[in-house]
């Protein structure tokens, strides 16, 4: 068997058209809006409509276009580095997202493992249960957590009546609430890839490990777990990337001191009406997220290579 590069075939017209669909989609709904945002990030904020300058118009002709191009500047980016708020927001987002992903993995892995060990006839139902939260509005589910977590909420009631605490825990409006909210919200994104990665394994592998002297636990650590890592990695990135830019959870569950970049961006846009700064925040966030995205891409490629 050769591990060489796959033979490159010439594409037919039909295949070209088919391939053009995702490219056009990306161009229309990712590249074009992104360029628009990037352009705004290079503009200046002004008190008018739209709240930035320069505004390009096709009717003004080439010379005006070149002149206005010269008015673009990096001043919004400069602000991002001058004011600590932005760096703190980025770091806060990364920290909370990373922490939430770690906690999420610790919860999701046993759940996914238990699902693969359940009788085969149960599994479709278990998968449906894992994604059942998606059937309710995300916003409503996050609101529900306020009811659970607030000082006179369900959780504190329960803990107080069990006499585990004698003062209500201050969870709501802290980073803890944000962590809980993010972990909860993204749990299905973690469970499903991990479940899939374990379920896909040939059951004989664990038997072979047992046969070669491994106890149940060491068969898990030496065979099942390492083989499930691509799923762990995929799930972690699926959770981490959107969690960094999360706005709803920190806004509803977080305190006023919860610094997350999604919230800062919202403030710049709607409270300060500083579109260039908000756009610059968005552009930098995308660049920051590009790193894990590329890692994810490489991971996917590795998986598809080993499956070949």
């Amino acid at each position, binding site marked *: 068997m050769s591990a060489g590069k796959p033979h490159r075939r010439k594409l037919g017209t039909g295949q070209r058209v088919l391939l053009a669909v995702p490219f056009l989609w990306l161009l229309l709904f990712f590249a074009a809006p992104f360029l628009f945002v990037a352009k705004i990030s290079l503009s200046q904020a002004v008190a008018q409509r739209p709240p930035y300058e320069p505004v390009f118009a096709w009717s003004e002709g080439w010379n005006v276009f070149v002149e206005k191009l010269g008015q673009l500047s990096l001043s919004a980016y400069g602000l991002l580095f001058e004011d600590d708020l932005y760096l703190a927001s980025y770091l806060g987002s990364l920290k909370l997202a990373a922490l939430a992903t770690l906690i999420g993995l610790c919860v999701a892995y046993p759940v996914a493992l238990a699902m693969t060990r359940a009788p085969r006839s149960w599994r479709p139902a278990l998968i449906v249960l894992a994604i059942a939260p998606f059937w309710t509005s995300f916003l409503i589910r996050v609101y529900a957590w306020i009811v659970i977590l607030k000082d006179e909420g369900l959780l504190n009631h329960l803990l107080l009546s069990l006499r585990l605490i004698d003062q209500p825990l201050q969870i709501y409006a802290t980073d803890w609430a944000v962590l809980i909210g993010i972990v909860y919200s993204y749990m299905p994104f973690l469970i499903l890839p991990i479940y899939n990665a374990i379920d896909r394994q040939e059951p004989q592998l664990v038997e072979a490990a047992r*046969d070669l002297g491994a106890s149940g636990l060491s068969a898990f650590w030496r065979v099942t777990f390492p083989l499930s890592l691509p799923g762990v990695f995929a799930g972690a990135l699926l959770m981490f990337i959107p969690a960094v830019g999360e706005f709803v959870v920190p806004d509803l569950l977080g305190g006023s001191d919860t610094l997350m970049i999604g919230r800062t961006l919202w403030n710049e846009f709607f409270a300060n009406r500083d579109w260039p700064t908000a756009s610059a925040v968005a552009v930098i966030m995308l660049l920051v997220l590009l790193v894990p995205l590329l890692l994810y891409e490489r991971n996917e490629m590795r998986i598809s290579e080993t499956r070949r």
Partner: protein
Amino acid sequence: MQQSLVRIDGVSKHFGDTTAVDNVSLDIGAGEFFALLGPSGCGKTTLMRLVAGFETPDSGSIVIDGIDMAGVPPNRRPVNMMFQSYALFPHMSVAANIGFGLKQAGMGKADIAARVADLLKLVQLEKLGQRKPDQLSGGQRQRVALARAIARRPKLLLLDEPLAALDRKLREETQFELMQLQRDLKIAFMVVTHDQDEAMAMAQRIAVMRAGQIEQLGGAREIYETPATTFVAQFIGEINLFAATVERGQVMRCAAPAFTCRLPEPMAEGTAVSLAVRPERIRLTRGEPQGGEIALSGQVMDSVYLGDVKVWRVRTDDGGLLRVSAVNSGNGTDDIQRGERVHLAFAESDIRILPR
């Protein structure tokens, strides 16, 4: 037979309503090459898994090396298994696969490396220790699986269809290598196979299984020459089966093809039996055969050329259908064609009388 290594005593295993293994008892000697042979679903793989410890018997006991295996998990049995799918760990190198069981046994790194090197040499994969399983050919993977299974020097090696995934040429080669290896290592081998050639070529004793039970247990010659049941007779090689009845005066009468023959031992009159004759024991001639044998005549329906052998189907004048085969020796009968009139002859001693 050598001293018994494995003693399976009255073992049964049910899965829901189906009985996979039905009250099976057998002994395997130390250093013996033993085969479980049968069609798919006959319970041979379940029996092997019971010995390995992946299944627990519903009743009966399995004793290995004098120790009752009830409640002993697979990792504590002096047994290793080579899986049909090989079950190589895809995230580990060839060397790490082979060394897995040694590491599990707590052996030191240097000792593991030395033993793995020896094993790689034994299976002729010296240079491939650092490869991953998916970078190997099917034959190489089979060797890795074998090396991994013998690394811990088990008392008994279980091989689940060890040659099934190999192509025909490689299968024959590997068959001889396995036999050589078994003689060198002096480990008892228990092979599960559905391939009668494989079992007959390699095993000292064969247990032919059907529907969870052992139909016959014996050497290759015994099973082929004196099958105990019509199932064994038909499963091992080709055979002609005729329905016959015992008549007075210790004679059997067969209806189609019509002939009578003497019974070697007396049987109750009227007993319905099957007469079995191997195709290669029937002589096919153009001229009249010599006397003293059972002689029939008929017309050739088909003639099949297989290179080393030739096979004919002959319809006798009384409506019987016989399969005849002969080695391609170039002695004149080899060119008998479809449609020719022929004579058939076989000796009474070539007939096996089986219960119907």
